[in-house]
């Protein structure tokens, strides 16, 4: 080991490898953690840095899981016990609370400061903003204290998110709160739908995890297609709105070649035609709602007025089967009125019930559909087959129709 480079204080043990991460322009987590430890003299933070330094040295991880929870809940805490607590007793425990943030990751400073205060007072003071599933992750507390901390946070209006075989916390793009493309209120939908499944967030009873993600339009800024079991993506059924004057202005400003090369030629179905030299026309029955032209000419074009959502189901990561993208199951539904929401939840209830009954242990919805066949799923979900669901009809004759 080389010499300790941190000269500020002596509270910390030497971490020469980690100190290398204090170099360079990107905000450094080591620098901040060290500052925190030096200010608060929190031994857990020191212990964790020591163990991390040891990981950097030995190139191995040293956390193991376990069962840590709060009263009445079966999930929401990720337990971490050091496998080498004898070496680093200060790192013996390092549990994480997964807190559900407000939809779209919006915070008042008041709310956020309250969390910080509890977390500094009661635990490590380390906060991950945010986990890839979207949780506000409060990293680093002990088993003893976890109930108390949770109670404090719960009093402030915070609740735990999902973990294990349950409904996971949702994620939503900023949507109508600050985006002109949003075709529905992602934040409201996130709030209503996740809270409808509150019980399932807290009490694992599914075959495996289930994630909702909410994107206001097909740009899918919330990564819903790739990373959720049920992607709720804004779309529209009528024609793209064109402000022809602004099209003309756009062409004047950017040049005709830019419009041809970067808009017309990039439409995946060649649905856009140039009209003369200062206008375009869109053949809306060929448009697949990809957003590209609207993205580029955002002042001149916008989604239609008859807006709603598409539901894509079965997305998930690599594990075991290779990455699965969610696939189109409900091409269009309205999602605005209470009735619309009731319908949507009736539908996802049917889907989740079917999966809960049929899914194997550790089997995601997409895998379950794949194993049992899409026909079985469609019947259970009460869906009619449409060509929107496929890139193309089947290319093998191996099916048994009911006739």
């Amino acid at each position, binding site marked *: 080991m080389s010499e300790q480079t941190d000269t500020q204080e002596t509270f910390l043990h030497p971490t020469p490898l980690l100190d290398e991460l204090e170099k360079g322009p990107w905000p450094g987590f080591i620098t901040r953690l060290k500052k925190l430890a030096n200010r608060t003299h929190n031994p857990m933070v020191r212990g964790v840095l020591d163990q*991390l330094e040891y990981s950097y040295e030995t190139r191995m*991880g040293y956390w193991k899981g376990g069962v840590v929870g*709060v009263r*009445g809940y079966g999930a929401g805490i990720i337990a971490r016990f050091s496998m080498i607590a004898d070496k680093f007793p200060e790192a013996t425990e390092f549990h994480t609370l997964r807190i559900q943030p407000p939809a779209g990751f919006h915070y008042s400073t008041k709310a956020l400061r309250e969390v910080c205060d509890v977390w500094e007072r009661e635990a490590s003071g380390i906060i991950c903003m945010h986990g890839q599933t979207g949780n506000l992750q409060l990293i680093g507390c002990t088993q003893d*204290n976890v109930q108390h901390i949770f109670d404090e946070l719960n009093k402030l209006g915070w609740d735990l998110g999902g973990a294990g075989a349950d409904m996971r916390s949702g994620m939503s793009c900023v949507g109508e709160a*600050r*985006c002109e493309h*949003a075709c529905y209120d992602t934040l409201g939908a996130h709030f209503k739908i996740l809270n409808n499944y*509150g019980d399932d967030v807290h009490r694992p009873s599914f075959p495996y995890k289930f994630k909702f993600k909410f994107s206001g339009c097909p740009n899918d800024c919330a990564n819903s297609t790739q990373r959720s079991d049920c992607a709720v993506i804004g779309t529209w059924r009528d024609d793209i709105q064109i402000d022809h004057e602004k099209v003309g202005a756009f062409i004047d400003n950017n040049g005709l070649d830019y419009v041809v090369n970067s808009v017309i030629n990039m439409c995946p179905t060649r649905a856009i035609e140039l009209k003369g030299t200062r206008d375009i026309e869109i053949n809306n029955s060929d448009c697949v709602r990809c957003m590209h032209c609207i993205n580029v000419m955002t002042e001149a074009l916008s989604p239609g007025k008859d807006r709603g959502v598409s539901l894509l189901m079965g997305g998930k990561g690599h594990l075991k089967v290779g990455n699965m993208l969610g696939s189109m199951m409900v091409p269009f539904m309205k999602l605005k009125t209470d009735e619309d929401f009731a319908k949507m939840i009736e539908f996802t209830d049917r889907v989740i019930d079917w999966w809960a009954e049929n899914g194997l242990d550790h089997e995601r919805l997409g895998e379950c559909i794949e194993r049992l066949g899409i026909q079985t799923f469609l019947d259970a979900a009460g869906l009619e087959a449409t060509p929107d669901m496929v890139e193309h009809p089947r290319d093998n004759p191996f099916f048994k129709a009911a006739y």
Partner: protein
Amino acid sequence: MSASTEEWKTIESGVRDHIPELHPAQVRNFGKWQYHYRPRPGVLCHVAESGEKLFTVRCGIQRQMTVDSVRFLCDIADKYCEGHLRFTVRSNCELMTTEEANVDKIIEELEAEGHPVGGTGNAITCFAHTQGWFHCDIPATDASGANKSLMDAIFEEFGREEMPNRVRLSTSCCEINCGGQADIAVVIQHTRPPRINHDILSNICELPKAVARCPVAAIRPTTVNGKPSLMVEESKCIVCGACFGACPAMEINHPEYSKFAVWVGGKLGNARTKPTNMKLVAHGLPNNPPRWPEVAEVVKNILAAYKAGGKPWERVGEWIDRIGWKRFFAETGLTFDKYMIDNYRHARISFNKSAHVRF
């Protein structure tokens, strides 16, 4: 820290209501935004139907934050943003103001504290990264450290909008890939079947669960020293690491044989082309903390080739689709090898089932 004493009856409040958390201008113009433009890299200006403008300054943070750094951002939000702020799905922080004059001040204060401003439009943005040695129980590397090192290596591009289109990056500390699909992804790759720790196995492992977890039925029950245990048929094993998630005795990680792989062309949204999975283009790179220079080199080369060759709006995968994989490997100096040809479940789908060929 004090232990819980009184009995608080949990309120299952679930997701916290977002309305009080929004910036007042977001509430006023909810669902009534008309368009936006980017006055400079890192700054968005959204214009509402009412004509009101909302400026957003986006800055990089370290994701694994501390109460101090959160409070710093709150201070700025209190000063310039009416006490509100938000974070993005890629762990950037966004500070919003209706006062154009505040923009430069916000930027100045952020930069002074080491928070770079950028990540908008066709810039690169923060790696979606994961827990790693810092917290996870199955990592073979440290994603936060790798993210820091890699962002340092390509730092300038965060503050510039000079790429053909946005570049989404991710890094994951095991093959499970919690970091997700990305234009360029850096993921630890297991390369050796799990060594079984028979000492602890029979105490901590639900044997049938571990057996069931294996996607290729490579794990079989056996007896070791008279105790029920497991064995791995190594020729079958695809080193996926799934068993390690089910049972910590299936030791898949290794200080030397856990390697880095680089993937390209993942796409999450629907703009122009459909979402796509990312593809393997380099593997066997050393897991070399604390700075992972070999991985950074590969990422930089790919970015440079894309920057030079991509047409406006072309994402990394779309650029490669146009120029072909042969040229991608030539232009990035990477080497195609037989392991890059799929041999898993849907392997043949990815074969070149045609006489289309480039010379």
